[in-house]
C-alpha cells in the first residue's frame, strides 16, 4: 500500500545540494534548539564546529529550552535548560559550555519546560507545575495534577499558561504574590475537557488563539483570552467525507495513524502533522484547505512552515520532505457537487489522485501541497529539524547524527569569499594595474 508520493532524482527546486554530517552523539538525537541566530542545540554551531559537549545528565533528556536573558545589566547570556529523566534540570551557559546550576528536587520527570521571557521565569511541567526564576528559586508550584503529568505547556496572554495534562487542558494563571517582592502564585483557572484523548500537541498561533491536537486526531482551536472553543476539526479521517478511501482507512486506522503529532502555524493556517499525513487548516475558513494524507511512509514527527509558502516535514521513515502550498487553478469541470472535497491529484507522479482531499468553495482559491524535494540522509527516524533560513537546515535523527543541509551554490560562493580573504591576508593577492 505504498501510496506515498515520490519525487524523482531531479529536484530543481530543492536548494539543498550540500550536506555536512555531524557526528558526536552516541545516542538518539532528539532535540535541536535554536539558541540564537547561528547556534543551536547543546553542542553544535551552524558551521558544524562542535562547540561544547555538555555532560551532566544520567538519563535521557526529556526537554530542552533556551533561556536568553534580555537583562541590560548583564551581558547577553545564553542559557539552556535541560530536563532529564533523572529528575533533574540543569542550567547551562551557552557561551562557556559550563553547567551553571542543577536542580534535583523534582519528584517526577520533568517533561516540558517553558520560559516566560516576559516575566523572566520559567516553568517546568511534570506531575506538577513549578515556577522558577532565573536564580533557580522555586517560586511556587501547583498541587499534584496527575500521574501522567504535564505533557505540553504554552504561554497565553494575561500571564496565563495552558498545560496539557492527559486529555485535559488546564489553564493556569500566574499572579504576583501579595507579600513577597518577587513571588508568584499559580492558580488554576479553568479545565477544558473537550478532547477525547491525550493531547499531544499544543501551539499558540497568535495572541488570540491557540490550537491543540490530540491522539485521536482532534484539532481544536481555542480562544486564548476566554479559553473557549472557536472551532474544531474533529476527525481528519471522517469516512463519510472520504468514501473512496474508506477501505484503506479501516485497514490502517490505528491510533498512530490519526494522532496529531505536531502542530505549527503561521498567521493564517495551522499545519498539522497527523499520522503520516500533513494537513493545512485555515483558521479563517475554519477548515482544512489542503492536505497530503500520506506524506511519508511513516509518522510525521515534526513539521515547520517556511516563509516562502513551503513546508518541511520529517518522519520516522528517515526522510525529510519539502512541500509547497500552491494555489490551484480551479477547473470548471470540478465535481463540486460531491460535497466539500474534491478528488484531485497533486503531482504528476501521484498514482492515486483520490488521496488529495481538498475542501473547496466556489469563491475561494484551492490549495494543494506539492512535493518539491526530499532530503535523504538519515538511516533512522528524523526526530526534529531546525530551519535556519538561507543558512540551511539541520536535522537530527535516531541514527545519532545531525545533518546540516546547505545550499551548495551559496556555500561555494562563501568559500570563494573566504578563499580570497585568505589570499588577501597572506598577501598573495595583490592586484596590480
Amino acid at each position, binding site marked *: 500500500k505504498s501510496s506515498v508520493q515520490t519525487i524523482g532524482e531531479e529536484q530543481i527546486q530543492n536548494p539543498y545540494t550540500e550536506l*555536512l554530517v555531524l557526528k558526536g552523539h552516541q545516542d538518539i538525537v532528539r532535540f535541536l534548539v535554536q539558541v540564537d541566530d547561528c547556534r543551536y542545540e547543546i553542542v553544535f554551531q551552524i558551521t*558544524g564546529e562542535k562547540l561544547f559537549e555538555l555532560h551532566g545528565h544520567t538519563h535521557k533528556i526529556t526537554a530542552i529550552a533556551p533561556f536568553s536573558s534580555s537583562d541590560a545589566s548583564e551581558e547577553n547570556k545564553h542559557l539552556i535548560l535541560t530536563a532529564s529523566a533523572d529528575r533533574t534540570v540543569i542550567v547551562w551557559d551557552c557561551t562557556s559550555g559550563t553547567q551553571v546550576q542543577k536542580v534535583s528536587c523534582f519528584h517526577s520527570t520533568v517533561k516540558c519546560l517553558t520560559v516566560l521571557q516576559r516575566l523572566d521565569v520559567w516553568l517546568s511541567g511534570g506531575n506538577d507545575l513549578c515556577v522558577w526564576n532565573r536564580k533557580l528559586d522555586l517560586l511556587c508550584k501547583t498541587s499534584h495534577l496527575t500521574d501522567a503529568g504535564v505533557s505540553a505547556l504554552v504561554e497565553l496572554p494575561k500571564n496565563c499558561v495552558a498545560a496539557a495534562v492527559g486529555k485535559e487542558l488546564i489553564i493556569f494563571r500566574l499572579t504576583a504574590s501579595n507579600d513577597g517582592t518577587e513571588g508568584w502564585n499559580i492558580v488554576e483557572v479553568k479545565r477544558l475537557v473537550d478532547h477525547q484523548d491525550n493531547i499531544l500537541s499544543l501551539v499558540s498561533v497568535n495572541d488570540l488563539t491557540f490550537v491543540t491536537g490530540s491522539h485521536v486526531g482532534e484539532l481544536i482551536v481555542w480562544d486564548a483570552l476566554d479559553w473557549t472553543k472557536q472551532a474544531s476539526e474533529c476527525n481528519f479521517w471522517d469516512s463519510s467525507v472520504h468514501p473512496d478511501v474508506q477501505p484503506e482507512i479501516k485497514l490502517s486506522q490505528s491510533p498512530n495513524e490519526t494522532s496529531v503529532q505536531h502542530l505549527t502555524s503561521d498567521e493564517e493556517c495551522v499545519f498539522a502533522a497527523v499520522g503520516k499525513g500533513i494537513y493545512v487548516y485555515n483558521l479563517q475558513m475554519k477548515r482544512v484547505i489542503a492536505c497530503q494524507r500520506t506524506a511519508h511512509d511513516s509518522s510525521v514527527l515534526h513539521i515547520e512552515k517556511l516563509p516562502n509558502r513551503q513546508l518541511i516535514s520529517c518522519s520516522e521513515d528517515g526522510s525529510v520532505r519539502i512541500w509547497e502550498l500552491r494555489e490551484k487553478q480551479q477547473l470548471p469541470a470540478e465535481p463540486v457537487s460531491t460535497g466539500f472535497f474534491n478528488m484531485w491529484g497533486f503531482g504528476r507522479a501521484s498514482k492515486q489522485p483520490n488521496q488529495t482531499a481538498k475542501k473547496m468553495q466556489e469563491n475561494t482559491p484551492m490549495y494543494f501541497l506539492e512535493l518539491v524535494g526530499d532530503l535523504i540522509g538519515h538511516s533512522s527516524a528524523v526526530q526534529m529539524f531546525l530551519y535556519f533560513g538561507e543558512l540551511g537546515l539541520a536535522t537530527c535523527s535516531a541514527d545519532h547524527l545531525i545533518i546540516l543541509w546547505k545550499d551548495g551554490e551559496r556555500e*561555494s560562493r562563501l*568559500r570563494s569569499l573566504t*578563499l580570497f580573504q585568505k*589570499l588577501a591576508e597572506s598577501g598573495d593577492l595583490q592586484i596590480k594595474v
Partner: protein
Amino acid sequence: MISAPDVVAFTREEQPEDALCSEPPLPEEYSVPLFPFSGSGANPWAKVAGSKFSRDFILISEFSEQVGPQPLLTVPDDAKVSGAFDLNYFSLRIMSVDYQASFVGHPPGSAYPKLNFVEDSKVVLGDSKEGAFAYVHHLTLYDLEARGFVRPFCMAYISADEHKIMRQFQELSAEFSKASECLKTGNRKAFANELEKKLKDLDYTRTVLHNETEIQKKANDKGYYTTQAIEKANELASVEKSIIEHQDLLKQIRSYPYRKLKESDFHPYEPERALEQADAGCERDAAASDLAEAGETHLYAHAPSYTPKLIKAKSAKCFDKKLKTLEELCDVYFFTQTLDQLYQIERTFRGDVCYLLTEQISRALLKQQRVTNFLFEDVSLLDEKQPENQYGGCRGLGHDDVDGKCLEEPSAPKVVISLGSYKSSVECVPIKMEQEMKDSQESRMSESVTFEQQDNLDYLDADLKGSISSGESIEVLGTEKSASGLTKSESQASLPVSPSPQAGRSKVGSRRTVSEDSIEVLSTCPSEALIPEDFKASYPSAINEEPYVDDGDGGLRFAPKQEDAAEQEALLQVDSACCIGKESPGFLEPLAELGQKPCDEDGVVRIPPQPYREAEQGPRGAFGGFPSHEGASGGLLPPYELDSRYLAGSREVSKSSLDECSDSTSYISSAASTCSDRTPSPARPGCRAGDRHRKRAGQGALRFIRQYPFAHPAIYSLLSGRTLVVLGEEEAVVRKLVTALSIFVPNGAVDARPVKHWVTSPLHLLDFQKWKLIGLQRTGSPGGMNVLHALSRYSRYVSILDTDSKTLRCPLYKGSVVSRLADHRTQIKRGSTYYMHVQSILTQLCSKAFLFAFCHHLHLPISEREPEESVVKRRMNFLKLQLGLANEDIKIVQYLAELLKLQYIQEPGQGGNPLLRFDYVPSFLYKI
C-alpha cells in the same frame, strides 16, 4: 606525472640525427661511425645492446693490499645481472683510478699515527670496450690490521647508458654518499670497538709483562739485568707505547667531526643519526639496538664477555693473516642498512634515463603546485621522496626561502675537498668555481633563459660521447667538479630544444681526438671557454626556434602553476578578459589576430610563461618557466606557433587533437612493444611499488574502457565527485576494478585517499562523504538485501556499477573531456603509458580548476553594486568560452575547484569535516 616519456625518448633521440643529416658530409676520418649494433636488427634505442650485462647494477670492489682489486659483491645479488661482464676486470678498472692522496699513518713530525678523515671521491668512468659506464664512489674504511689502517673500497653504479650516469650524477652522488656515510659510520663504530678490544688486550699484556718483570726483579737480586729482563722491559715499553698509540687512535675516531657531517649536504637517515650520536656520546653504553646484535655475530668490547688475551706488541705482518671482510669491517646494523640503501638506489635508478628524468622533473614541478597537486597525486609520496631523491640543484625546492646561497653551499665544499684527491692519479682539471658562481648569478638574472645555455651544454655533452670509440681507454667523463653544471643540464634534459647554429659550431670545436690507451679526465664543467659569448646572446632567438611538439591535447599552455606571481598574472589576465567581454564573444578577437582560432584556451594562452619567483638557481629558474602540464614534451610555446589544426572549429579541435594524440601515443607504444625485451622503455619494471601499482591500475583502466561502453559516464561520476559503487560478488574482480578506476578519483582535502576497495556492510551516508569509490559485496543473504536496500535508498548520491550484470546506473554524460581521457579505441597498450596519459589530462583539468577557483572576479562582484546574476553569468561564460568546457565538463571543473578551495581554506591542523556535495539529477541505466 606530467607527460609520457615515450615522447621524450623519440624527440630526444631524433633531433641530433636530423642535425647531422643536414650538415655537409664530413671527411671520412671525422665521421661518426655507424651505430655498431644496428646490423643485428637491434633497436637503436636499446642502449644496453653493446654491453654484456642485462641491466644496471651496483658493484662494490676493494683494492686489497694482498691481492689487488677484487669485486666483493653486486646489487642485485644475481649472477644473471652481470652476466658475461667481467667483474674482476672492471674492478681493476675502477680501482685503478684510485685517488687516495690522503696520508694515514705516521705523518712526519707527529709522534703518533694519525687518522685522516678522508672525503669520498666520486668519478664517472667509461669503458667503451665493455660497453659499461660507471659512477664510482671511492671510500676508505678503517681497519686496525690494514696497512695505514685504511682499506680502500669503491661502490660503482654500472650502467650501459652513459647518459644516465652523466645526467644522474648528482642524484647518484647524493645517494651513494648517503650509503657511504652509513657504511663508514658503521665502520667507525666497528673500528672503535676493535680498538677497545685491542686496548684491553694490550692492557692485559702489559699487566702480565709487568708482573713477570716484577717477579724477575724479585727473583733477581744480583744487581744486574739479564738479557731476558731487558727484553721484557723493552717489550713492556713497546706495549706501553702501543697503548698510547691506540688510545690516541680511539680518541681520534671518537672525535670524528660529526659537525662536518651536518654542515655538508649529507643527510644520513634519521635513525642512524640518532644512533650515531648515542654512539659518539657514550661509547661505553651499549646501545639498545646493538645488544641484540652483539650477541650473535660480533664480540665487541661492549660485550662484557670479552676476555682479553695476551698479544704481541708488534702486530703481525700483513700477509700473515686474512684480512677482514667488508661485513666484518662494519657494524652489522649499519652494514645491512647500507645494503638496503644500495638496493634502494638500484631500484630508484632502474629504467631508462629519460624516464628517470621525466620523473624527476614532473616531481619537481608537482612539488611546486602546492595548491593543486593533492588532487591526483600522491602527495605523501612526493614529500617523502623528494628529500631522498632530490639532486643537489633542486634541493632548495623543498624550502620556501632559499636564495642563491644554497647553490653555493652544497657544491662549494665538495669541490674543495675533492680537488686534492684527484691530483695523485689523474691530471687535474682546472675548475672555475668563481665563474660557475657568476654563471649561476647570471642565470638568475636571465632566469628562464638559463636552460637554453644548459641545453646547449647538453649537446656539448652529448657530443663528447662521440669519442667513446677509443679502444682501451677509461674515460673519466665527469667528476664532481662538474656537478653544478650537470645539475643544470639535467634539469633540462628532456626539453627538446634544437641546437642553435652556434651550438653546432661549438660542438665541432670541442670534438676531441680519439686516444689510445689513456685515461682521460674530461670535465663537463661549463667553463667560459666552451660557451662563446655570442652564443649566450642568442637565447631569445633560440626560444623561437624551439620545435613545437604538439601533443594535440589542446590544453592550456601557460606556466603559472606557481602560486604567487602566476596567480596574480592569471588574475590579471582574466580580469581583463572579464572586463573586456562580459558576455560578448567579441573579446576573443585580439586573439584571432594572432592567427589563432578562438578556441578553448585562447584566453589563457596569452599569459606569458612566468618565471618562477624563486628562480635564482639555474634548474629552478628553468622549472619556473616551464609549462606546467605539457611537461617535457611541450616546451615553451609561443602562441603563434600553434598548429594549424587549431584553426578548426573548437569541437573539431578537441576531436582531431584527440585522434592525433591517441594516434601518436599509440604509434609510440606499438613501436615500443615491438622492440626487444631489452628495450629500456619507460615502462620497465617499476622503480617503486607505486609504479607497479600505477601500471596495474593503468592496465585495468584500459581494460575497463575497452570492455565497458559506458566507461565515460562512470569516469564522469568519479571526476565530478559522485561516489561510484562497484558492486559484485567476487572480491577479486571488484578489487581489481576499483584499483583500475582509482586513477580517476580526485583526492579530497582530507588526508585519506577516498577509495575503499571492499565493503561488505550496508553503506551509509558517512561512507559517501568519506569515499568516492567503493567496492561493495553483493550477496544473496538477508544481509546482502540490506546492503542493496541501503544502496537504493541512497541512490541519489551514488552511481552504481554492477560487475555481475554489467550495468551502470548513473547520470548522463555529454561532455568531451572524458572521451579524451578514455577513448575505447585508444591504441595505448601499456598500463603505465595509459596512466600517464590519464595523468596529463587530469593535470590539464587541474589547471583549469585552479584558474577557475582562483579568478577573483569569477566569484566576487567587480563592483559593489554588481548583481549576483552577472557574476554567475561571467562565471559560466568563463567556463564555457575560456576554458572550453561543455555540458558536464563544467561540473567536473567546478567540483575540482571546490576541492581546491576547500583545501586552500582549510586551516592547517584542523581535519575539517568532509562535505558531501551532490546534485539532483536523474540517473540512467546503461547496459552493454
